């Protein structure tokens, strides 16, 4: 059997899907469950090629309902398990993710957003923000990392296992079709070689000992008899989530300190935003960029600080305001004027942002 998927560090030029498959193996994942859907397929393709060398199984399920619930089962058995999906598959996976939220099952799901609603396109969008953050009947007790390049896909896939298992919160890596399919350079590494310790996994069922003899059985449920009982459970979930949120939250800002216009974007669109800000600065225009890396929990404090200093905000996204809703919620009470570029299912260039910023001055 091969030793480790990545020894030390390695410069690679690959697609985002390949980066995710490598990252999962580098993170010492035990098992992947999945169902085909574009633009996520190659995660499974690379995984099924690489994983047997490390004795790691893959199960192709009958649909994404099953992929989500088998992942739940794998995690509950104590194994580092994950799945990946997109679009309508993400829709079907919400049911199992609500169970994961309720029972604090540390699942990891990689989402490669495609156009929506419905089957729409297999290409690209940022239209799965609301669903990934708040899907199903629940309160959004989740961690969602929105990555912007292949290095981050690799880094955050590894990190998502640690976040999930450290806090016992279902964790999502939110990519998109561009990131999934495009090739670019990144440095892959063995987490250990960088001093990243993989958080230990442990079983929730199938525990050692004899249930009823030398220990109590694990009786895990998500159904409750009274409103009060449920209220207590959900209140505790929310309380625990809010307590750890400051440790989990991540964001990045770029040239915001003296900026007159701050461009707010997440994921791959923030690359266009960075590019636009660079160009605008060259032209003597004071522009900046703020980017949440975690969409759940949302970096409220950090965004408020940026909004306080800026004269105007520009929200840019490949969706009709799904990200803007998170921003509005976060900035409630703030009166900084805000403008928008909404392009559901369409890529956004730096030129569009530059022109819009100029028009806002």
């Amino acid at each position: 059997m091969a030793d480790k998927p990545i020894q030390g560090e390695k410069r690679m030029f690959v697609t985002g899907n390949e980066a995710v498959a490598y990252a999962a193996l580098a993170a010492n994942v035990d098992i992947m469950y999945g169902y085909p859907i574009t633009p996520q397929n190659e995660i499974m393709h690379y995984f099924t090629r690489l994983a047997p060398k490390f004795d790691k199984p893959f199960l192709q399920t009958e649909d994404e309902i099953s992929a989500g619930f088998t992942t739940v089962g794998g995690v509950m058995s104590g194994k580092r398990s994950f799945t990946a999906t997109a679009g309508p598959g993400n829709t079907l996976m919400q049911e199992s993710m609500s169970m994961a939220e309720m029972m604090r099952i540390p699942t990891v799901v990689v989402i490669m957003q495609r156009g929506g609603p419905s089957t729409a396109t297999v290409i690209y969008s940022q239209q799965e923000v609301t669903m990934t953050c708040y899907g199903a009947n629940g309160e959004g007790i989740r961690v969602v990392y929105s990555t912007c390049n292949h290095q981050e896909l690799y880094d955050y896939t590894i990190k998502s296992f640690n976040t999930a298992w450290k806090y016992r919160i279902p964790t999502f890596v939110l990519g998109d079709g561009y990131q999934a399919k495009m090739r670019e350079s990144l440095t892959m590494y063995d987490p250990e070689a960088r001093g990243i310790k993989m958080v230990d996994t442990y079983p929730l069922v199938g525990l050692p000992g004899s249930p009823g003899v030398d220990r109590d059985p694990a009786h895990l449920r998500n159904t409750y008899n009274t409103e009060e009982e449920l209220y207590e459970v959900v209140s505790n979930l929310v309380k625990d989530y809010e307590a750890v949120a400051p440790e989990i939250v991540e964001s990045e800002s770029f040239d915001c300190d003296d900026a007159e216009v701050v461009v707010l974007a997440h994921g791959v669109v923030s690359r266009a935003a960075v590019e636009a800000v660079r160009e605008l600065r060259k032209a003597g225009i004071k522009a900046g960029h703020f980017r949440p890396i975690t969409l759940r929990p949302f970096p409220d404090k950090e965004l408020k600080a940026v909004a306080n200093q800026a004269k105007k905000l520009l929200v840019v996204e490949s969706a009709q305001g799904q990200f803007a809703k998170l921003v509005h919620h976060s900035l409630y009470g703030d009166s900084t004027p805000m403008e928008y570029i909404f392009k559901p299912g369409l890529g956004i260039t730096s030129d569009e942002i530059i022109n819009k910023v100029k028009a806002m001055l």
Partner: protein
Amino acid sequence: MTVTSVMEPKMPKCWRQETKPHKFCPGCGHGDVLKALGTAIDELGIQDRVVFGCDIGCSLLSWDFFNFDSIQTHHGRTTPVITGVKRARPELICIAYMGDGGGYAIGSQHLVNAASRNERIFVLLANNAQYGMTGGQMAPTTLPGMKTETSPYGRDVEWTGNPTLGPEMVAAITPDSAYVARGTMSNLRQLTQMMKKALQNQIDGNGFSFVEALASCPTNWRTNAAKTWEFVEKEMPQYFKVGELKVPAKKEG
């Protein structure tokens, strides 16, 4: 009062005493089916290795029923959850317990595909010919002409089709290494034997195991004890033939 009537009814060893009496209605078939399951597990001595999953439906009331690690999941989703556990931890003995609605309606794709993949799990399904938990609606297994809340004039097979024959379907799509049977609460000795074979099939790593158990729901059938028994013993087996449909051949040597 006779002596026997004041004696504690004999409980399988793996039942959790602290959660008894159980939560099912009086006369409910779930209790009997789980008695057969408990007895089978006791006799095989596998309690320490079992992971038990229950569906939504009245089967959920068994979430704290046994002294095994148990997961109560969503309506229809017990099969994939238990599949996920088994695939990740093949040394465990994994059981998915569900109703006829859970197995044959909302979770039918999971049953069909788990059977086709010959998953090394044991699916146990209590067939009470309707949706018990939600108040007695028609299920895929509702008998022709049978009145339920959503077939108040009796099930019209022209409009709604014939009762689902689960074990027959599973037997048709599984390889020879699967175990498939239909038992009934009215013959607990036989039902227990079926469950033992089903579990043994998993222990041996052979393949998928499936047992449907005919079970009562006096609450929604609105039947007294005599009528309940008559329905289970006489009416149901007219459509649902009791017996083994697939028994794996003994391994050579």
